[in-house]
Structure formats: structure tokens, C-alpha cells
């Protein structure tokens, strides 16, 4: 495929302080640092009441009855009160997929601990919780499907009675492995497991709904990444016309995927607000989050890798199980995780043959929700540990084995074994750069010196690609009920000469508010302080499917770029008229249109347009200074960011503790819009990845009772547990996107588990211990060491 020339990269020059590539401070930080941001919990509306939920104490039970406290019947609502509220129902076109009805409040059965059974309202949250306590729920326990094995066992109870098993979906990719098997010099077999996690945004979910009589609209303030999608979901389930629903996402304290799906609480709170005519708010607390929100990351793998004597991958055969929990979330379905896992396992490698089967298993846990990196942290962990196992099997350096297998720059663009189209880049170069940064060259000496002091240190790598801004065809192939396509944005010159940008995407900590302003500045050549950005309100912004799948910068950025380009064109026409010259003889610079030494400032042009049309010609183009444009990249298959992470760790064999001594990320995400924001995204993502690698885990007992319901039990890494990250970059602009931008929001969360556990295994190699499960807690590390000790003693 020939690379199309990117016409949009030929722009006018001029001084540039806030455009693409500038390290501008984030616009949103002032309000956050001053405590002036407005989250759902900060909104004050007179007469607003608070909601609390009665949640299921059991993982699987039939509901025999719910009794409201006497005298409070009009303050407690169950599904029986809401016959008009439709359940969340996520269809998919994938064959074998089974649909689950996910009611806002449980109807006949509860299917996980923490599932909502009734909603209670009162003037304060404490009173609402008092009410919730006074509700009695009569539950008849059912056999609990606490894990994958129980759910798949013959004769297992059914989670959804109309199904004939407990599988949401199975998929197969039947590559022919016969050649790989015949030629293989080494065969590596491993099983891997990743823990169930909760995403833990600083701000949990929150929703405040009220009926606006003037607009005849339900107005829902909700902590979401996808306001326009929530509007669609709410109107579908509530039976309202979309015109009767306005969704406003105010400041949002982190999303990570947790807030990209329709929440049952959004439905019941909205229903009650409409029914009672009161503003109603619910704020998720940490215990609700850690129990009812423990909904992500849990995978299990069985992998067989075939390689030649040099460590060249010949084929991979994989079985992947995903513990989906009880319900399919809307709109991303219960399928996305396994479909992505199966599709992404080959990662950045040039892999000849591939076979893979996936099982999306229904269990008594909260419904699986895509989390930063979606499936890839799991597949990267499995694949990267396998690469190290191959390296050990053939006796070669893990970096060399990787470089032998990574898709080389010369092969770009490259279509891999699962049909993914890698648009640009040089994957081995990134791996070598990371290795250089971390000092791989003299690591052997460093390791020997440490060993002489009785210390165990190890080096580990993990490489990955991050598919970003994948569009219509990709999501349609995953069978989703709602497929993203293009994106619109509005850029307007206000009468004062300032610029307004409006996007239906959302900014919830990832800096999009600043980054899309920079794109506008790139065309309009003005300081970012002159740009006002409005996002997240369905009444004020063009439609957008929202922020997920690392699409915000590419899609919203692309749309702002097109709109700003068109606005710049119009400004030059009007400016040229004021300057009495031809538009071709003008340029934009410093917030003005210039012709030689003469200039017309944006304020002057705006004044002419809005207030003194007499200064413009009679036959002026009336299209105006408010431009809405739409955008999609030249390809639909996504832009692939790529990176290699490298970690050096020290493992204390006496306490099982792992300390990260050095951590390097070498990444290429195409053109960097704001390098500082990118660094922040890398730190934050890697911190979450380190959480997965070493700390975070929702534990359950055999009755699927969560055992980690406070932050004393669910351990998040803090500043003291995180290393000083060192970052390196190359810039390979994508030939297929505006400005060569690729998405990068998820990336850094993908690789830490692979890099760190490889480093741990490198450190433990002298003891004969190997870890294949995350988090690599001190308990697991010590357990592996004790097991290896016992095996050695038994052999002696």
C-alpha cells in the first residue's frame, strides 16, 4: 500500500507558543490545584436529595421479596415500582454471543455481591443509608459460580437461566500450526493468570439527575467519559426521546474505562428524579467501588509457543479465558475483552502461525468493563513472559530474541497474522533504545556485583503496540451495538477575538481540554489563554461517541484541526478585505491576519463580522466565523503507537518484596501534541500497570464474597512504591492521520506487568523460581521461592 502524502502537514509558519508540540501548562490545572473544579459531588441544587442503594449481600440468590420500611414507601423504590424502565441490554452480532439483561435494580435474581436491589432517597446520604438498612430483602441462596472452573464444570448452575451454559461467547482463530510444530526446535508451554481488579479513579461514579421543566428535559450530570453515548442509553432505557435528555459531564476525576459504559445507577437515579420531581444525587463510595466495581482485568492463559533454535517464533497456540462476571456492559459488550485478547496476543511480533480459542465466562462477579489498555495488559504479560521463556530455552538474551521477532521498520506498513494493520514505526529500534537507556550493555556486570553482595537483581523487557483510534470497521467486526465513526468539533471566533472550541469528547484528567486547544492554536497562531474549550455537555457540543480506545487526541484533535483550518481560511478572507489585499497574500500570526507590515487583529475581524458588517463587502460569504467540521483518519483500522518498557528490580528473597530500581519507557506515538501531557500519561499509566504487576487484586472466597472491600485490603501503589520513570521518545508520524498523531492514553498501563515480572524472574533464576501470576505479591514471590527450595531439597 502506498503511503499517501499528508497535505495537512503543510502549514503556514509564524511564531508559535501554544501549538502542536509545545509544552504548555494544562488549562484545567489551575482550577484543580485551587480546589475550584466542579465534580458531580460539588454541584449544589436547592432541594437536591441523596440516594443510597440496598445492595446484594450474596453473590447468587433468588429474591423472594423486598420489604420497604413502613411509612417510607415513597422513598424506597424497587424494580417493581419501575415497570417502564428497560434493562440494559447489549446486543452483539458476533455468532455464539448470548445476551444478558442487566436490570437497573435486580428483579428475580441477584448475580453478584453489591448488585443494586433498591434505591432509597433522603435529604442526606446518612439518612438515605439509614433507610437502606431498614429495607429487608429475603434471599434464597443459589449455588455460586465464584470462578471460571466452577462456572464451566459440567452440571454447573446457570447464571442466566435461559442460557444452556455459562458462556457469553466463544471465539476461535484456527491458524495452521502443523508447519510450526514440525520445524520447532523449542516448545514453551506456560499458564498465566491475572487478577481481578477495580480501576479506582480518584472520583468514583457520581450522578445527579433532575427534571428541567422549562426545557422539558431530564438533565443528568454524570461522571462519564461518554456523555453522548449515555444520552442514547438513558433515553433507550427510560423510553424518552433523545431530545428530552441532556447529559452533562462536569469535571470528571479519572475514567480509565470505568466511566465509559451505561451504569445501572444512572438509570435508577434518573428514573427516581423524574418520578419524584426532585433533584437526586448518588455518589459512589470506595466500598461500593471496591465491591460492585471490581470488574476488570481477570484473564487466564494456556500458551504453547513454537520457536526455532535461534528463538525465531514459528507459531503460537493459545487458550484464553476471561472471567466476565454476571452482565454484559453497554455498549462495549461482554465480548470486547476476549475478542481483543485473541486479536492482540501476537502483539508487535512477526508471527507465522497462530491459533487461539477464547471463552468469555459468566460468573457471580460484577460485569466486565474495559480498563485502560483493554485486554492488552493481560496479553502483553502472557506474551512477554513467553518471549523470556523462549530466550531461556534457546540460551539467548531476551532483547535479541525480541529484536529477531519484532516487526522491523522496513516491513511497514505491515498486516499481522490476525489482520491488524500496523501503520508505521520501527519496533526493534524502540526495544534497542529502551535497552540502551537502562544500561543493558553492562547489566551482566551489575548483576554479578549485586550477587557478590548477596543481592538478587534482574532486568526485564516488555514490548507492545497500542491500537489507537480504531474506527468503524474494527468496532463493527467486534459486533458492538454502537460503532464509532467520525467526530465533529466546532471552532468559533467570538466577538472579542477569542476562540471557542466545542467538542463532544471529554477531558477527565488526560489533558484533552488543553491538547485540543493546542491544535486550534496551531492553525490560529494565538496563545492558548485566548482559547476557551467546552466539552462534555450534549446540549452544547457536537455528537461524539466519547473518550475511550485512545481515540480522543486523534479524533477530537483531528476534528478541531479541520474546523480551525477552515476558520483560518475564512479569517484570511475577511482580514484581506480589511487590509485591502488578496487572501493569498496574507498570513496568520500572533492572533492577527498580516499583509506585509499591515495587520488586522482577530478582534478587529470579529468586530467587523459581528458588529459592523458594513466594513465587509456586500457579497460576503455568510458562512460565518463558527465552523463545525467532521473528521476521520485516512484508515479505519487504527494508528499503532508502540513502546518497549524495561525494568530493573531487586527481589528480597527473605521478605518477597520487589523494589523497582530503574524503569524506562521508550515510546513512539507519532507526533507529540504536548510532550508534557504525554509524560503525565506515561507516568500515570505505568503507575497503574505497576499496581497490576505488584499490588492490586480483588480477592474472593468460594462464595464469591469480595474480601478486599476497603483500601486497607486492596493495595494501591503510592508515591513511595513507584520508581522515577525515565522516558525516551522517537516520533514517527502516522501517514494516515492529521498531523501524524497517534493515540497514547492507554499505552503505559499495558507493559509494566510483563517488564516487571520478567525482571523478577530474571532475578529469581538462580533460585530456580518462576512467577506466572500477577500481582507478584511478596506472598507469591516468597511462595515460589519456598516451592523451588522444596523441589531442590527433594531432588538432592
Amino acid at each position, binding site marked *: 500500500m502506498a503511503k499517501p502524502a499528508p497535505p495537512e502537514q503543510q502549514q503556514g509558519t509564524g511564531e508559535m507558543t501554544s501549538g502542536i508540540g509545545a509544552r504548555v501548562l494544562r488549562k484545567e490545572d489551575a482550577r484543580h490545584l485551587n480546589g475550584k473544579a466542579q465534580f458531580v459531588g460539588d454541584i449544589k441544587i436547592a432541594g437536591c436529595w441523596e440516594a443510597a442503594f440496598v445492595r446484594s449481600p450474596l453473590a447468587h440468590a433468588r429474591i423472594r421479596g423486598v420489604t420497604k420500611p413502613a411509612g417510607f414507601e415513597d422513598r424506597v423504590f424497587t424494580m417493581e415500582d419501575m415497570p417502564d424502565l428497560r434493562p440494559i441490554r447489549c446486543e452483539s452480532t458476533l455468532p455464539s454471543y448470548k445476551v444478558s439483561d442487566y436490570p437497573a435494580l435486580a428483579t428475580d435474581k441477584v448475580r453478584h455481591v453489591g448488585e443494586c436491589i433498591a434505591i432509597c432517597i433522603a435529604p*442526606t*446520604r*446518612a439518612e438515605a*443509608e*439509614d433507610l437502606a*438498612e431498614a429495607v429487608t430483602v429475603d434471599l434464597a441462596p443459589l449455588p455460586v459460580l465464584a470462578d471460571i472452573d466452577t462456572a464451566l464444570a459440567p452440571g454447573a448452575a446457570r447464571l442466566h437461566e435461559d442460557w444452556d451454559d455459562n458462556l457469553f461467547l466463544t471465539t476461535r482463530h484456527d491458524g495452521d500450526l502443523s508447519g510450526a510444530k514440525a520445524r520447532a526446535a523449542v516448545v514453551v508451554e506456560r499458564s498465566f493468570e491475572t487478577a481481578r481488579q477495580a480501576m479506582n479513579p480518584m472520583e468514583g461514579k457520581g450522578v445527579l439527575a433532575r427534571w428541567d421543566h422549562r426545557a422539558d428535559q431530564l438533565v443528568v450530570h454524570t461522571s462519564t467519559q461518554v456523555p453522548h453515548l449515555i444520552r442514547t442509553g438513558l433515553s433507550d432505557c427510560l423510553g424518552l426521546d433523545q431530545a428530552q435528555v441532556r447529559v452533562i459531564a462536569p469535571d470528571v476525576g479519572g475514567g480509565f474505562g470505568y466511566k465509559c459504559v451505561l451504569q445501572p445507577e444512572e438509570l435508577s437515579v434518573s428514573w427516581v428524579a423524574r418520578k419524584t420531581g426532585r433533584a437526586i444525587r448518588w455518589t459512589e*463510595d*470506595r*466500598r461500593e467501588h471496591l465491591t460492585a466495581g471490581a470488574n476488570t482485568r481477570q484473564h487466564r492463559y494456556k500458551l504453547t509457543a513454537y520457536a526455532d533454535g535461534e528463538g525465531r517464533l514459528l507459531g503460537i497456540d493459545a487458550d484464553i479465558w476471561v472471567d466476565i462476571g454476571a452482565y454484559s456492559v453497554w455498549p462495549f459488550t461482554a465480548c470486547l475483552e476476549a475478542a481483543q485478547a485473541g486479536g492482540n496476543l501476537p502483539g508487535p511480533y512477526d508471527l507465522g502461525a497462530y491459533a487461539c480459542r477464547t471463552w468469555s465466562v459468566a460468573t457471580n462477579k460484577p460485569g466486565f468493563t474495559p480498563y485502560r489498555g483493554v485486554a492488552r495488559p493481560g496479553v502483553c504479560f502472557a506474551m512477554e513472559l513467553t518471549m523470556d521463556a523462549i530466550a531461556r530455552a534457546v540460551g539467548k538474551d531476551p532483547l535479541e530474541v525480541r529484536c529477531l521477532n519484532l516487526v522491523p521498520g522496513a516491513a511497514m506498513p505491515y498486516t499481522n497474522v490476525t489482520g491488524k494493520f500496523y501503520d508505521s514505526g520501527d519496533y526493534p529500534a524502540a526495544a534497542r533504545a529502551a535497552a540502551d537507556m537502562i544500561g543493558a550493555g553492562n547489566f551482566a556486570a551489575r548483576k554479578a556485583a549485586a550477587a557478590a553482595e548477596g543481592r538478587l537483581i534482574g532486568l526485564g523487557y516488555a514490548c507492545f503496540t497500542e491500537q489507537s483510534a480504531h474506527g468503524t470497521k474494527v468496532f463493527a467486526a467486534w459486533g458492538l451495538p454502537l460503532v464509532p465513526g467520525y467526530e465533529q468539533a466546532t471552532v468559533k471566533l467570538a466577538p472579542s477575538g477569542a476562540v471557542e472550541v466545542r467538542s463532544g469528547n471529554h477531558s477527565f484528567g488526560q489533558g484533552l481540554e488543553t491538547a485540543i486547544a493546542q491544535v486550534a492554536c496551531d492553525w490560529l497562531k494565538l496563545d492558548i489563554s485566548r482559547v476557551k474549550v467546552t466539552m462534555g455537555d450534549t446540549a452544547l457540543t457536537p455528537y461524539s461517541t466519547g473518550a475511550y480506545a485512545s481515540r480522543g487526541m486523534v479524533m477530537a484533535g483531528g476534528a478541531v484541526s479541520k474546523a480551525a483550518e477552515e476558520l483560518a481560511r475564512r479569517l484570511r478572507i475577511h482580514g484581506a478585505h480589511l487590509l485591502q489585499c488578496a487572501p493569498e497574500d496574507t498570513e496568520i500570526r500572533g492572533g492577527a491576519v498580516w499583509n506585509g507590515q499591515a495587520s488586522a487583529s482577530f478582534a478587529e475581524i470579529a468586530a467587523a463580522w459581528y458588529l459592523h458588517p458594513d466594513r465587509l463587502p456586500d457579497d460576503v460569504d455568510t458562512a460565518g466565523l463558527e465552523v463545525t467540521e467532521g473528521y476521520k483518519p485516512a484508515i479505519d483500522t487504527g494508528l499503532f503507537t508502540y513502546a518497549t518498557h524495561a525494568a530493573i528490580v531487586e527481589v528480597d528473597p*527473605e*521478605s*518477597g*518484596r520487589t523494589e523497582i530500581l530503574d524503569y524506562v519507557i521508550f515510546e513512539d506515538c507519532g507526533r507529540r501534541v504536548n510532550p508534557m501531557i504525554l509524560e503525565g500519561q506515561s507516568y500515570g499509566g505505568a503507575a497503574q500497570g505497576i499496581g497490576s504487576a505488584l*499490588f492490586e487484586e480483588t480477592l474472593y472466597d468460594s462464595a464469591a464474597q469480595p474480601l478486599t472491600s*476497603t483500601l*486497607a485490603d486492596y*493495595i494501591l*501503589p*503510592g508515591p*513511595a*512504591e513507584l520508581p522515577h520513570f525515565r522516558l525516551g521518545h522517537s516520533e514517527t508520524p502516522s501517514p494516515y492521520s492529521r498531523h501524524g498523531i497517534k493515540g497514547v492514553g492507554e499505552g503505559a498501563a499495558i507493559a509494566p506487568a510483563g517488564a516487571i515480572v520478567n525482571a523478577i524472574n530474571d532475578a529469581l533464576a538462580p533460585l530456580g523460581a518462576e512467577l506466572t501470576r500477577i500481582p507478584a*505479591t*511478596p*506472598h507469591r514471590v*516468597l*511462595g515460589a521461592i*519456598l516451592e523451588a527450595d522444596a523441589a531442590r531439597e527433594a531432588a538432592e
Partner: protein
Amino acid sequence: MKPAAFEHLRPDTAEALAGLLSPEAKLIAGGQSLGPMLNLRLARPARLVGLSAIRALGEIREQDGMIVLGAAVTHARIEDGDSPVPLPPMLRHVARGIAYRAVRNRGTIGGSLAHADPAADWITALTALGARVVLRSAAGTERRVAMPGFVRGAYRTALSPDEIIAAVEIPAAMRDAIWGYDKICRKVGEFADAIGALALHPPTGHVRLVAGATGAAPLVLAEAGAELARSARHPAIPALRDALAAALPGTDPVKLRLLATSLSRAIAKVLPA
């Protein structure tokens, strides 16, 4: 996560406090253990009686060869050495390792002892230092219980329902103790997975080797302690593990290893391994 309704009283004298003690009342000092239990509605007292307004409970003094710490003295004050009399260095070290500063600003030594979380620091550290707890009843009578005996098990103490902890007494000689303290935890400021504590004071013959965070009351390893004092030799980790295994039957091997490691590391501060 809001507590059930309660009445909140803050007496400012010991006498007023005594009048408020009742089975429905619960004392609250720093609230750093009780607060979460209230919010989770695991504790639902009708009445909360605060200790922070009673000046005497916040005093530190020296009397009859004992350093006396009022029950409401905060971890932060101990960490800072904010005291009219010098504090044993080990106390300040232990305080610094409890939680993080915001918790230490409010959490109190008496609250920690009364709560008796098996993974907490003070129950183990004060056992090593040979401290005793001063208990005062509503009627005003006082009794003193030496540390190993005060903690009866996980979250169980020698306190009777009508008593409060008034103070903690530590022998002043402990300022000159030779000590080692090691805490293994998953992240900075977390409760311990294992604690090892050792305090030696040759002039008075004080020797205490203690394993903490065992899941139950702190474990005094009398024999191992006496042996290391006699031989001035660091015991081998397997020997420590065997001593622990004998005293804590049924403990899983990983936990035993952690406990042995922290003991060994505490000892290593005094005697090189």
C-alpha cells in the same frame, strides 16, 4: 459509607468522663481506627465520648523511674519528640513508621493499644520495651497491667467495660536500651505483615525479643532472647523459624518466613548477622 446516628460528647475532665462511661458509650480518641468502623457501620454506638478535650490524657511526664505517656498522646508527638522529658529513641522510630502523617496527627497511643489490631506497631514495640498500661475505672481505681499480658489476642485486651486506658508507663532506663525494630509491610504506612522487635538493657538485665503481626497477641520469644543476650550471637533464620513454628502451630510457611526475617533484621541492628 456514613455512620449511623450517634450522640457526640467531649468531656474536659477525668471526672466528667467517668460519669459518661456506660455500655452504650464508646470512647473515641483519634478516630483513626474507630472512624472507619463507624463509617462501615461495623461499630454503631449510641454515644461517642471524645477524649481529646481532657488535658491530663495528653500529658507526658517522668515519675518514679517511669516515663508516663497519657493515653491521648498522638503518634505525631512521639515522632517529633514533642515532650517535656526525653523519649526513648525506639519510640520515636516506631512512631515514624505508623501510617502516614495525617493519621499520626490524630491517632493516639492509647487508642492503638485499646484497639489491639494484631498487626499494629505499639502493642509489639511496647512489649519489647517492657511497658505497662495504666487502666482506670469509672470509680477512679487504677491498676497496671504489663504489656505482654494486656493484649489477650486479636482485638482483645485486659480492659474491662468500665475502664479506660489512662496512660502507658515505660521504664526510663529504656532511653539507653540497645534496640532493633523491623517492620515488613506491603507499602509505606501499611499495617505490618511481620514485625520483629528487640530491646536489651544490660544494666537492668532487660531482654525482650518479640514477634509482632502474628495474627494474635505479640509473641515474646523468651528463650531465643535469653540465648542471644548470653551468647551475643545472631541466631540463624532457620532457628528463629523453628522457634516461631513451635510457638505458632498452623501458621503458613510464608508467614513464618516473614516473621523470621523481621526478627532477624531487628536483631541485626544490634548484633551483625
